[in-house]
Structure formats: C-alpha cells, structure tokens
C-alpha cells in the first residue's frame, strides 16, 4: 500500500491533496497545525483506516521529531513526502516604512525553509524504506530572484523564506539524488482561501482542488530528466531561481 505524508493539510492545497490521495487508495499522514479547522477530521470519517491526522508545527523541531515517531509507529515506509506547510500573512517589514519587523523574517525562514529541511532530515529513514523515494516541496514564484520585479507592500519575509526554501531543496537534491531520491519543486499559483466550512473565498484565482490535480500530475509521474532540479508552476512552466 502506498503511503504519503503531507504537511499543512488543514486546508487549501494540503487538504485537497489529502482528499485526492485518499480517494486513490493511499494511506495519508496529514500534518495538522490549525486548531480552528476540522476539515481533516470530517475527511477522516470517510477514511477511518487510511487517514492519520498528525499534530505538526514544522517551525518546532520537537514537533517534527514527535510527528516522525508517530508515523514510524504506524507505517514501515513512506513513498512520498509533500512539504506544503507555510507561514504567510502581512507583516510590517518594508524598508521605506520603518521600523521593520525583523523577527518576522526569522519566523518565515524557520517555518517555510528550515521547517521543510527539518521535515526532510527527520523523515529520511521512512522515505528510504519506501518504494518511490520522492520529496515534493511547495514553493512560490516569489522564490525566484531573477524574476522578482516588485517589492510587496507587506514586506520581505515571505519571498526571502521561499528563496531559502529553494536553496534547501537544491542542497537536498545534490545530496540525495545520487542515492536514488527524486525531487519536485512546485509553484501552485494564487489559490482561493479555503474557509473552516470548506467553502472558498472569492479572492484569488484558482480552486485548490484543481491545483491539487495539477500538482499530483507533477508529483506522481516520473520525469525524463530527474537529474535536473527545476521549479514548475501550475501550468507546467519552468521558473528560474
């Protein structure tokens, strides 16, 4: 039986990926962070045997270790790790509108970049025992230094953290691709926010369920050039670093 671990599964793309993999017969370990969302619990009523809800804050090293122990007690190997959890939101961190919330840069880094690295480091033994050995990371167009043409009014931390995430994935790729692991780096586009009742906000362009289908096409299938780490977006376009 195939098993996948997905972080940031409370809502949005993470939740939609959980629902999609469960519908296709996977065993899913879903990282849960938000207390005010119960979409996963409702999904669990349909998949009592195959959905495991795992408390997880990737910004906390101890939480990552606990999530690994929980998972290792229940499955012998993981086929895929999907790092989707991210810290977003507006912060006051603009050079021309001081004072900058400098600590916000660390918080974003600790969750969005270091969190993904903590997760990969901890879960390697389970991935090693799996059949697919694939690590997937949800990144963003704002990780691209080359194409960063604007300075967001809500500040620097999120793009900085995603640039660091791409570097982290690059380093993991260099270390683990020669050992048989494959990697995916994905920019999902501007998705509608999933509310606690499962409905979608009006703002933004894309339904997370549609993006999840696109992501799975990228995550699940082997590529002809696995030796090359690239970032693809929801339309299959390649982005530079």
């Amino acid at each position: 039986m195939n098993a996948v671990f997905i972080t940031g599964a409370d809502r949005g793309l993470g939740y939609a990926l959980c629902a999609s993999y469960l519908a296709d017969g996977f065993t899913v370990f879903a990282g849960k962070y938000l207390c005010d969302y119960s979409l996963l619990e409702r999904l669990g009523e349909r998949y009592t045997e195959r959905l495991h809800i795992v408390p997880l804050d990737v910004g906390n090293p101890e939480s990552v270790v606990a999530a690994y122990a929980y998972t290792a007690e229940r499955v012998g190997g993981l086929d895929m790790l999907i790092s989707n959890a991210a810290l977003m939101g507006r912060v006051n961190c603009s050079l021309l509108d001081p004072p900058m919330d400098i600590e916000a840069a660390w918080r974003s880094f600790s969750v969005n970049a270091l969190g993904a690295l903590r997760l990969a480091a901890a879960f390697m033994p389970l991935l090693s025992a799996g059949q697919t050995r694939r690590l997937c990371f949800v990144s963003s167009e704002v990780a691209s230094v080359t194409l960063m043409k604007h300075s967001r009014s809500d500040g620097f931390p999120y793009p900085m953290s995603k640039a660091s995430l791409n570097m982290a994935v690059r380093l993991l790729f260099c270390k683990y691709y020669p050992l048989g692991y494959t990697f995916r780096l994905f920019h999902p586009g501007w998705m509608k926010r999933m509310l606690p009742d499962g409905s979608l906000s009006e703002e933004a362009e894309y339904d997370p369920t549609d993006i999840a289908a696109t992501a799975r096409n990228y995550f699940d299938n082997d590529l002809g050039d696995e030796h090359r780490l690239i970032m693809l977006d929801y339309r299959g376009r390649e982005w530079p670093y």
Partner: protein
Amino acid sequence: MRCAFNTALMTSAHTAFAEALAKVFVREGLRVLTPESFGVCAPESVDIYVDTSDSTDGRDVFTEGAGLDESLTRRIYEHNVLRPMTLLEAHLKALIGGQGRRLCFLSSRAALTSSALADSNWAYKLSKAALHMFLQMAANKLLPMGFTFRLFDPLCGLLAPEAAAEAAFSYFTRRRGTERDNPMRDDETRLVLRDALGGEHAW
C-alpha cells in the same frame, strides 16, 4: 582619477578583507566610518555603504535525522540576514542624504541556488539565498531613488584579502556598464553577483 565617493560607511572592519578594503578607501582619499568610529552619533550623510557581514562556521553541516544545528543556524541567519537588514534600515536616511547612494554587500558564488553544492555550509547558503532576495526587493524600491547595488564575492581562501580589496574597490566605486555616459549601455538595473576575479554568476 579620484573616485566619486567621499564618505564610506563600513559596518565592520574586523575581517582581513574588510580591513584591507578600509585601507584602500583611505588610500584613495575616502573618509571611512565604522560603527565604532561614530558611536551613537550616526553620520548625517554617507556616499557609499559596505556591509561586510559574511559569517560561516565549520560546524555548519547537515546530518540525516538531526538536520541542521538549530542555534548555529539562528546565529548565522542573524549575522548574514537580520543584521544587514537592521543596519541598512538604520543608515538609509544617511545614505539618502549622501551623494553616492551605492550599497555594497558580500556573498559567495557557492551560495547561488542554480549551482550550490551540498558539501558544506548549508545554513550559510540558506541565509545568503534570503539575503539575495532581500537585496533584489530592496533594489526594486531603491533603484528608482538613484541607489545602485554591488554584491561581491571576495573569494576568501582563494585570493589574498589585499587583492580582493583592490578588486572590490574597483567594482564598488565605478559605474557598471556605462560606455561614455551612454544610458543605453548602462547596466545598473540588474542585481548581479560578481567575484573578485570579475566573474559574474547566475542566481
């Protein structure tokens, strides 16, 4: 030809490279300020700003299971990212009041995502990726205000600090790309990383 900058602010002159660069600035007639030299009385105008933050640590390694050392990673990120952000914010007013509006930072070609290798210095490389994005976004704000940027790899360990300082001075103090003042040949709107041997590297 005397360079166009009169006052340089260096965030530190404690490394061999920074000390050598300060000497070149003085030799070329610039007044060099450091936080130690002006204490709590920050200068009112600065022409060229050099942030020398560039911290590595031999213990900065990734291990399976444990990942990175959390406290070491925090220290490296503080030194290479949070400190440069804080200092630039603190001195931006003086830079706006100066004549040169040139901002210079240190990085490494080993810390470019397109070509980084997993040999060592993972936290350093993650921190520099964040710094690169910060500088790109800062450039988007500050270029229209007349600021220009330099991101420089002194090639520590490969070049002597004195040689790297001469290369840095040359790169930091001249205009990039201008050919006989032809604006069509100007190249100041791109943020690029160049090393002390003149090499330019893709992100």
